């Protein structure tokens, strides 16, 4: 019944490998060479310093969201609303960027704080809805839609660029509002440092804080946790807000470094991608950055893949999707089970309080 520990650790890689195999089959079916395709992807992700930095730049917001999810999952929460929290972070940062003009360090600090606050607030809203009997999956999805609508309203209304008209996004922010970038890439050392900080914070929270212990108890057995003195209301809100703050930070980096303005579809599903990352990482802290990096590399590499092979452009999406599917199918039945019973209980008792 018990597998050796090292095997359990490496088991994470099994679905990744299997997905690579399946994608290879697909490639062959399309008449392309898997070896060539994967080498193109490798090139695209790591082929030059700029490319590597671009991959890293894409990885950072994804990582931040995934780190946040580790915390909310620890408390047993399915924070699907992370996508919306990410977007709200972007909006929060944009708000400061568009309305203030301060020296860069101060300006950027304020933007980051506003983003984290906005993300946390959006997440707390899902937490409150849960208290009132709306399961966080449904509350989260609704808030995601609302976040998209809010973005569209802002960029086509109050924050419309002066030349008017376009639905694409706001005008670029002033230079002091943007993160300093390395060379001609979208990579920012500040962003990397923030991600490192966030990792340390999550590590501390989950491994060493009493709060982390309370979340663990709550996530594993809310009824026991209550009898042991854990307030599910308080901790649910806090865990959501913590996750939202990190996602919001991710959203801020997206507008302040990846782009230079608030755009339509600012996230493009990074929140959902982060959900896949933590599931694939089986909720383990040290695997999360690796899996996130793997996802970032695959997607980033698929750009060159498309240019080289001129195959269908969503090969990267297919690869990541297949991978997560495989994880669910045979990598981590536990996850599937808890997810399934969550969804079922959510469907059955929308009014349930916990």
């Amino acid at each position, binding site marked *: *019944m018990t597998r050796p520990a090292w095997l359990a650790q490496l088991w994470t890689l099994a679905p990744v490998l299997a997905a690579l195999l399946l994608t290879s089959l697909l490639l062959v079916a399309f008449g392309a060479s898997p070896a060539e395709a994967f080498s193109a992807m490798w090139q695209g992700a790591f082929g030059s310093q700029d490319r590597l930095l671009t991959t890293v730049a894409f990885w950072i917001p994804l990582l931040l969201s995934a780190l946040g999810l580790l915390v909310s999952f620890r408390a047993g929460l399915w924070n699907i609303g992370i996508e919306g929290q990410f977007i709200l972070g972007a909006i929060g940062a944009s708000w400061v960027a568009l309305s203030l003009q301060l020296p860069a360090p101060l300006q950027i600090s304020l933007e980051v704080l506003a983003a984290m606050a906005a993300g946390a607030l959006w997440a707390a809203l899902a937490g409150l809805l849960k208290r009132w009997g709306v399961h966080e999956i449904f509350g989260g999805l609704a808030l995601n839609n609302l976040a998209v609508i809010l973005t569209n309203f802002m960029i086509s209304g109050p924050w419309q660029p002066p030349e008017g008209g376009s639905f694409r996004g706001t005008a670029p922010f002033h230079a002091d509002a943007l993160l300093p970038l390395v060379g001609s890439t979208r990579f920012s050392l500040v962003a990397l440092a923030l991600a490192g900080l966030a990792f340390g914070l999550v590590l*501390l929270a989950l491994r*060493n*804080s*009493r*709060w*982390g*212990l*309370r979340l*663990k*108890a709550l996530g*594993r*057995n809310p*009824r*026991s*946790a*209550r*009898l*042991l*003195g*854990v*307030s599910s209301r308080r901790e649910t809100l806090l865990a959501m807000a913590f996750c939202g703050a990190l996602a919001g930070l991710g959203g801020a980096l997206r507008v302040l470094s990846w782009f230079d303005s608030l755009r339509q579809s600012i996230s493009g599903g990074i929140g959902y991608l982060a959900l896949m990352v933590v599931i694939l990482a089986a909720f383990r802290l040290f695997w999360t950055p690796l899996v996130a990096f793997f996802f970032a590399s695959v997607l980033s590499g698929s750009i060159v893949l498309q240019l080289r092979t001129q195959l269908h452009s969503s090969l990267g999406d297919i690869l990541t999707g297949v991978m997560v599917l495989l994880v669910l199918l045979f990598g981590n039945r536990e996850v599937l*089970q808890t997810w*399934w*019973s969550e969804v*079922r*209980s959510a469907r059955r008792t929308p009014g349930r309080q916990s």
Partner: protein
Amino acid sequence: MRVELDKISKSFGPVQANRGISLTFEAGRIYGLLGENGAGKSTLMKILSGYQTPDSGRILLDAVPQQFRSPLDALAAGIGMLYQDPLDVPPFTVLENYLLGQPGGLAIPRRTAADQLRQLGQHYGFDVHPHERIEDLSLGERQQLELLRLLSGGAQLLILDEPTTGISAEQKSVLFNSLRDLARKERKTLILVSHKLEEVQDLCDQAIVLRQGDYVGGAKLPCPSRKLVNLMFAELPRRAPRPRPVAGTPQLELRDLVVRTPRLALQPVDLSLHAGEVLGLAGLEGNGQELLLRACAGLLPLAGGELRLAGQRQPRLDYLAARKLGLHYLAAGRLEEGLVSGMTLAEHMALVSQNGLFVDRAASRAQTRRQIKQYQIVARPGSRVEELSGGNQQRVLFGLLPDDAQLILAEHPTRGLDLRSSDWIWQQLDLRRREGAAILFLSADLDELLERSDRIAVFSGGRMSRLLDARQTSLNELGHLIGGGA
């Protein structure tokens, strides 16, 4: 079928759970497996049923050695087990759960399968509803269902690990009747693991006793209970005398307290419980005593009346607030409501006893070690609670009670404990009450109620009887009141 265990050994780290145990089980007989908490009963049975593999030793069925890789393997060979802790409840219906265990499984048409299941239930005297959800069933009903699944899976040898701890007296007598039939009429072998000597005497043909991982002897039943007790415990348990009540200030006062749930409404209750006093609640499961206990802890909302803790009126009591006032609740389902699977003892300790932002691991480990010693728990600070034997889990729960607990509310405080452990738990509770704590508990064990309480209240149909003086009343009177008499 003749089942032999040949020199079975199993250890968990430093703990030797089974040491070279050899036993034989014959068809058509009912065996009682006895032993104190942590003696290794569950472990031995899990090995026999393929849930765990032995470190060494063999299992032989009709003299053929077997190797079980999983409970399914064992069931295919004719061995089925009902576990002590009900496994996690999957989100299935009764029927789905049943189908999953069938060879051919989901391919069987549902209609046919549902009929099959109903008939099977009738045959063994169980009332089965195929489309109910498992999570909505009572523990007793889940047991019945599991039993049917095992029987239809072809079990010749059935193991029941403490099957009577959580079920009502009625369900128990249904269960025992069908077990007798299984042995007598269908020539099945049955093994009953239990701490209740009367049960074993009543049902079993032969007793088998384990102590600290060793087989220490057996006896044909019925036999004098003394003999079994002597085998079970190296030293005879000392019965602690009941202390004199020392009534202090009121800790808990109820005036016209009303509690309502969809199933049952509790009639207005008046009650006061003083420091140093023990009040026992009697009654068949589901007659209101649980509601009262939970309402007093702020785990259920009040529908009316007044509740005071240490003289303070509590119009909207919440359990988390109540804890701060020194009220503590011990629920019956240890792993379901009380302890958190997957967390270690030390983590539990840190959770309830530390303040501050960070966990002081060294301190919580030291403190856990002290509690382990004081409460004689067979475990290490790093053990996860689900690894402990049932009795040890109960001890952990008590070990987590803070020293300054003023009011202890307990459901079935000694459920699943052996004689010595339960006596010991009561010693601990008596210590607490001497320090001024008030204790309110409910139990299904009338002897325990009579012996441990100062006063007893009996519940029937949501109505509480007058308060009885435990020294003055009798088993008869309790029985009469439980049955709804005045």
